[in-house]
């Protein structure tokens, strides 16, 4: 029992209990060992991790740091210490912010403080003066780390001194290049101006020389001088334009102009270049091209002149056609499309693009044979792009080429133009102010030949004195021609002063601009009425003077807010003031012709037959510039009416016959009874323009 009762070495329950305890113990020991093993492993891992971190931190190219919420450093790595030129201990005891460059310190410290306060990340690039007194650029980045014990910040710094120096060098180089480029443009502009001034003298006096009764040989030589001068001038203009496009200085004006008149003018300008080659020059303007648009007429003209001007160089026989059509339009704008088609040698397809590159021509020998800068087409394309369009070419070798030019222009509401009566010039008094004596003398000659009384002064100051002495009485000077680019007192200022004088408010002021100064708008603001570019052409000058002296007070008032008169606008107004009397019996044809002529910009009145024509002419002589007369009409036909008009003394007014079908001898019959010309129906806009140009516009210009 006892045995069974309770000795440790007897009895099964004890035996069992002791066994269980041992197992427990073994388990615990095992667990403990496991834990110790784990702990050892963790420690090893930790050590390894720390080792790895240290290795990274100590070898990395970036400075690494940790700092508290006050900005004091808690840890720095070797790179950090190197960048600041400090030892580890120094880096932890000194305030790193003391090493910020004095110029940057306040800003960086302030921004960092703000970032620390708001627990934001912060990056900056700034300069430090390291302990070794070396100045370095650093990139600093720091972000907050959140923990129970409050915010800490870790961050990196990178030495960016090399990059900064590089950037600095680049910036300096860029500034130097820009300055050099500006100097170059300025030099080019100055040079071009300086060259242009004597060239204007050469061309101007050559013009005067041509009017002095030269013999054939002298005339030939003189005309060669003039052509060479003009070629040189256009070369200078090309170079100047190109440099302006390069430097982005080219400005576009926005003034009204007549595209139809413009293309016909360009045709007339280029026609002489064909010489005696068997080449026909044609000009076509689409019926729906508006008579007035708004844009930069000089630039528009420049592109077309350039494209058309090339054609005669490369076309030996056949034809050259300049055409202008509407490409597309919207509410406020219209895109015009000009084409120049020739039957010349053509251009190989691989050259079609490169000719629009600067200094390129289809063939290297082209420059030698035809001259030119090789800039023309490149300028055309740039100008076209600036007008929202493009310039390009198509060609078939041996057949010919087509050059295209498109541009967006603003639409302008059509309005009738008042008829103007050209002023009588004899005895009108003109003051010419130009610091360039040559230029002054050329203008003096032109005006004296037209029997005006001319005073030439060479400075704005003298002009003010002269006008002041005249006491500002109205009519002492009817007109002042003022050069814009004078050294002491420029033309704009002078015009403003003159306008401010008593009695000079009504005087006509015309600005004379060196051809690249295209300040029409500025001139208008200064109080000018007209704007002409040099070299001044005699007929343009006189036409403008007649126009401006001939205007009425009433017109002056209604003219308020209109754009300034230019050499082109004068001719445009002339065209738009043309009044046509149309005699035609068929109501359908009447209406068609009236719509067409009105659209083309003319003022039209209708007569149903010859009797009505006679009545209208007797009642309102001088009210019409041109008569279009149907040959076949009831009551009194065109032939009879013409005969009667001529015999009643209406000898000046041009009369153009219209017939349905051209029959042999018709033309002779028409001319016999006193008609000037002859067209077939239906009349076309181009034909009408030709008649108006031949019998009205050119006549006005010649007079």
């Amino acid at each position, binding site marked *: 029992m006892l045995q069974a009762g309770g000795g440790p070495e007897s009895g099964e329950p004890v035996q069992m209990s002791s066994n269980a305890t041992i197992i427990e113990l073994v388990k615990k020991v095992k667990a403990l060992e496991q834990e110790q093993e784990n702990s050892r492993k963790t420690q090893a891992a930790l050590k390894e991790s720390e080792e790895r971190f240290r290795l990274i931190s100590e070898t990395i190219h970036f400075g690494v740091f940790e700092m508290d919420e006050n900005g004091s450093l808690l840890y720095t790595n070797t790179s950090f210490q190197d960048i600041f030129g400090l030892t580890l201990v120094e880096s932890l005891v000194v305030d790193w912010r003391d090493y910020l460059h004095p110029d940057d310190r306040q800003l960086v410290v302030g921004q960092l403080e703000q970032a620390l306060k708001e627990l934001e990340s912060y990056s900056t690039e700034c300069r430090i003066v390291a302990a070794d007194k070396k100045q370095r650029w650093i990139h600093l980045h720091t972000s907050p780390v959140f923990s129970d014990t409050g915010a800490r910040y870790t961050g990196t710094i990178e030495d960016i001194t090399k990059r900064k120096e590089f950037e600095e060098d680049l910036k300096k180089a860029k500034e130097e290049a820009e300055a050099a480029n500006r100097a170059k443009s300025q030099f080019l502009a100055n040079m071009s101006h300086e060259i242009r001034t004597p060239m204007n003298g050469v061309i101007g006096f050559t013009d005067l020389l041509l009017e002095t009764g030269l013999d054939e040989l002298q005339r030939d030589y003189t005309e060669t001088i003039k052509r060479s001068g003009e070629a040189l001038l256009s070369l200078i203009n090309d170079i100047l334009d190109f440099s302006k496009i390069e430097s982005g200085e080219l400005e576009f004006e926005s003034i009204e102009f007549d595209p139809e008149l413009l293309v016909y003018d360009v045709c007339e300008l280029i026609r002489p270049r064909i010489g005696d080659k068997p080449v026909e020059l044609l000009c076509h303007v689409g019926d729906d091209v508006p008579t007035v648009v708004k844009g930069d007429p000089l630039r528009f003209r420049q592109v077309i002149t350039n494209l058309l001007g090339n054609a005669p160089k490369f076309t030996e026989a056949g034809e050259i056609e300049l055409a202008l059509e509407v490409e597309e339009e919207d509410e406020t704008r219209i895109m015009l499309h000009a084409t120049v088609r020739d039957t010349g040698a053509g251009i190989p397809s691989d050259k079609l693009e490169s000719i629009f590159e600067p200094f390129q021509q289809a063939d290297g020998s082209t420059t030698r044979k035809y001259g030119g800068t090789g800039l023309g087409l490149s300028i055309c394309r740039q100008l076209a792009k600036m007008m929202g369009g493009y310039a390009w070419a198509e060609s078939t070798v041996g057949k010919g080429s087509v050059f295209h030019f498109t541009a967006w222009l603003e639409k302008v509401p059509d309005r009738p133009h008042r008829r103007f009566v050209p002023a009588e010039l004899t005895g009108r008094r003109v003051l010419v102010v130009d610091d360039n004596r040559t230029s002054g003398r050329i203008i003096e000659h032109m005006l004296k030949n037209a029997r005006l009384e001319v005073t030439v002064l060479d400075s704005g100051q003298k002009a003010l004195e002269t006008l002041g002495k005249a006491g500002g009485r109205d009519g002492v000077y009817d007109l002042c021609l003022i050069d814009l680019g004078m050294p002491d007192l420029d033309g704009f200022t002078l015009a403003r002063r003159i306008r401010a004088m008593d009695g000079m408010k009504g005087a006509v002021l015309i600005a004379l601009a060196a051809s690249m100064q295209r300040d029409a708008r500025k001139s208008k603001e200064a109080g000018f009425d007209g704007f002409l570019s040099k070299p001044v052409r005699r007929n343009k000058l006189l036409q403008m003077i007649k126009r401006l002296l001939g205007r009425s007070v009433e017109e002056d008032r209604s003219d308020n807010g209109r754009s300034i008169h230019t050499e082109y606008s004068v001719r445009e107004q002339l065209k738009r003031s043309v009044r046509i009397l149309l005699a035609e019996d068929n109501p359908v044809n009447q*209406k068609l012709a009236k719509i067409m002529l009105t659209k083309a910009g003319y003022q039209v009145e209708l007569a149903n037959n010859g009797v009505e024509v006679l009545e209208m002419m007797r009642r309102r002589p001088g009210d019409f510039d041109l008569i279009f007369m149907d040959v076949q009409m009831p009551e009194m036909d065109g032939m009879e009416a013409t005969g009667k008009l001529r015999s009643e003394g209406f000898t000046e007014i041009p009369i153009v016959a219209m017939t349905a079908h051209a029959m042999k001898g018709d033309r002779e019959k028409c001319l016999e009874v006193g008609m000037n010309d002859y067209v077939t129906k239906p009349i076309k806009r181009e034909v009408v323009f030709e008649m108006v140009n031949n019998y009205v516009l050119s006549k006005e210009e010649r007079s």
Partner: protein
Amino acid sequence: MNFKELGARLGLEEDEFKELVELFVETGAADFDRLQTAAASRDVEQVMKSAHTLSGAAGNLGLMDIHTLAKQIENQARDNKLDGVSEAVQELKVRIDQVAAVFGG
């Protein structure tokens, strides 16, 4: 009949062209009456005149079939050959009516 296209050929807006065609139909009716009467009474001079007017106006507007037909009548009259002209006149009427029909009568 595309008035827009025909008008554009003359540089006219569609409504301007329509107005012109209406005017043609209107005034053409009187010319046609004169032509018909003249053709019936064999008045060569008047046939020539009326046909000429019709062909001219139609030609200006680009109504080429009317123009050609009227021209043919005019030429016949000029050559004093009015045989078969009444068929041509009837044909002309059909063509003019076609144009008129586009405007609702």
